[in-house]
């Protein structure tokens, strides 16, 4: 891999919180605090973590919905912070998003065809006929009938709506899809349909995914690589199979221990951590996981462990390694 499609270096996003009577003093919520990862062409990176760990903020930074406090995002080697005009438009076309809830992400007043056509109208100068043809093409691509372009979102089920959202994201030939919990709101039988569809699209189109989720089994199923986030930082990243067979960081292992079994006889390592994710406003000193970590030592409270390689593709941020 020469230049990865997306290269994120030491990304940070701090949100100010005003405090005090006159709202003068302020402190910071460090939602994303030094995150580094890369996604290659045709690759899926799974970003996993509990609510409040910064995974959605990371997605927003990549989608340029938020400006980073520090760090860089490079797309095909080019820093996206400096993009203006047509280059910015091209980036927005190449990086698209699919949200969790297809009931709120599709406008109820627009026909499905118009929803899918909108990015094409803004991003390309295709003729009306060409746009209509492309809408039908992507509808078929995601497993819907081209005639459905005339219908409104309420005429579709949750799974079909999510297909529409994927079709919209792909309409203008996106290279990277940010999938923010795309199957969490769907029924079990429909989840498998969408996941298989996403895998199929990746194989045929070579599109890359940033798959954000909290369900370990789903993320592990679809991802090539997985990064585990905790309180704004990546604590472990590895190939999906390596992470599943040899999770190293105590937090990753706790996530695996907490994952639901797939058979009643399936016994898991009993490493159920206590407590809840602390507030990002006042993150613990040193390693942010140390107040909940069963292996914490005095060093963990003082010194933040850096992310270091323990294998060619396996990085862990923990003093144990």
């Amino acid at each position, binding site marked *: 891999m020469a230049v990865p499609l997306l290269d994120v270096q030491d990304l940070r996003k701090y949100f100010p919180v005003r405090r005090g009577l006159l709202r003068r003093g302020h402190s910071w919520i460090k939602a994303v605090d030094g995150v580094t990862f890369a996604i290659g062409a045709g690759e899926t990176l799974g970003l996993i973590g509990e609510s409040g760990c910064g995974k959605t903020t990371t997605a927003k930074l990549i989608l340029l919905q938020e400006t980073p406090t520090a760090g860089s995002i490079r797309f095909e080697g080019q820093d996206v912070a400096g993009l203006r005009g047509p280059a910015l438009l091209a980036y927005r076309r190449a990086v698209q998003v699919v949200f969790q809830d297809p009931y709120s992400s599709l406008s109820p007043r627009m026909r499905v065809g118009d929803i899918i056509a909108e990015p094409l109208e803004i991003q390309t100068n295709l003729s009306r006929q060409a746009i209509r043809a492309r809408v039908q093409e992507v509808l078929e691509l995601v497993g819907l009938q081209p005639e459905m372009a005339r219908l409104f979102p309420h005429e579709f089920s949750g799974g079909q709506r999510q297909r529409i959202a994927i079709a919209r994201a792909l309409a203008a030939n996106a290279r990277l899809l940010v999938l923010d919990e795309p199957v969490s709101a769907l029924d*079990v*039988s429909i989840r*498998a349909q969408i996941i298989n569809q996403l895998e199929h699209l990746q194989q045929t189109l070579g599109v890359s995914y940033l798959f954000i989720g909290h*369900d*370990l*089994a789903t993320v592990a199923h679809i991802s090539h690589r997985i990064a585990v986030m905790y309180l704004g930082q990546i604590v472990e990243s590895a190939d999906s*199979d390596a992470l*599943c067979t040899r999770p190293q960081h105590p937090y990753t292992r706790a996530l695996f221990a907490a994952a639901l079994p*797939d058979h009643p006889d399936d016994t898991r390592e009993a490493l159920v951590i206590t407590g*809840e994710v602390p507030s990002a406003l006042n993150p613990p000193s040193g390693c942010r996981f140390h107040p909940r970590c069963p292996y914490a030592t005095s060093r963990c409270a003082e010194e933040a462990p850096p992310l270091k390689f323990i294998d060619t593709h396996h990085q862990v941020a923990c003093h144990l390694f």
Partner: protein
Amino acid sequence: MAPLLHVSDLRTYFFTFGGTRVVKAVDGVSFTLEAGETLGLVGESGCGKTTTCLSLVGLLPPAARIVGGSIRFAGEELTGKSPRELRRLRGRRIAMILQDPMASLNPLLTIARQVGEPAHFHLRLRGRPLRERVLGLLRAVRIPSPEVRCREYPHQMSGGMRQRIVGAIALAAEPQLIIADEPTTNLDVTIQAQYLNLLKEIQQQTGVALIFVTHNLGIVAKMCDKVAVMYAGKIVEQSPVRELFNAPQHPYTRALLGAMPKLGRREPLYAIPGQPPNLADPPSGCAFHPRCPEVIPRCVSESPEEVVAGNGHTARCWLVQPDVEVSRGRPSA
């Protein structure tokens, strides 16, 4: 000895458009539950699992009515009871935990007030004994520093804590049965694991029976003794939990198991084609036939009866071979 709960041939229909349209949300559901046992009620949205539970506690919306069948709870028939009688039963002997704790807690009342309400209403506790009881319950569900927390309001709690508060309310009057309707859907994985372990522990201590409504077979594998799989208002398969995972009989159950991503084994997922049926216009014959990979002509025209497939194991499918020995021996539970 009679089981704690015996539901037989329960039918709850919704009547809309002045009774001209009938939706058979629960259409002949039967199951039993012993004290201390956990039943998983599994199915997709709209399959009737929540309506089944609401029928048990008499909290059906106005458009719905129980039109047939019986619900026997601890030897008492619940269908046909007056709202007043049901109110005395609800919270006292059957408690419910709902999916969204923010929607089931009153934002204007303190935690102490809400946790104490069932004990106040049903057990007539007042003053210091009531306060002691509230603190005990909060301790039982692992709320840190309950003396402080009980004066706070729901918005001051995290999602996991709120759901534990709802659990404390459910336990307040020492019920014999708790119905938990997708209680962990909104919780994070580690918080979910904590909550499920807590429920298990409480069950071991108190011997309360649990009905777990969920669409997640992982929760069933972790929590339940037996499982009932619902599809389009009917229980299509019912079995002890291990047997369901080892030898699923109904194609729908097999499809659900195949659609579940498994950690550490990257097998292709089985995607069930099509959509869950619309109960206002259910398919003919077996309701699963339009999505079934093993459909035969008979499925389209005739609805299959329940077949005994093993000990405590039944399925509604034309392809299931009855277990002759068991079905002759005794009627299955």
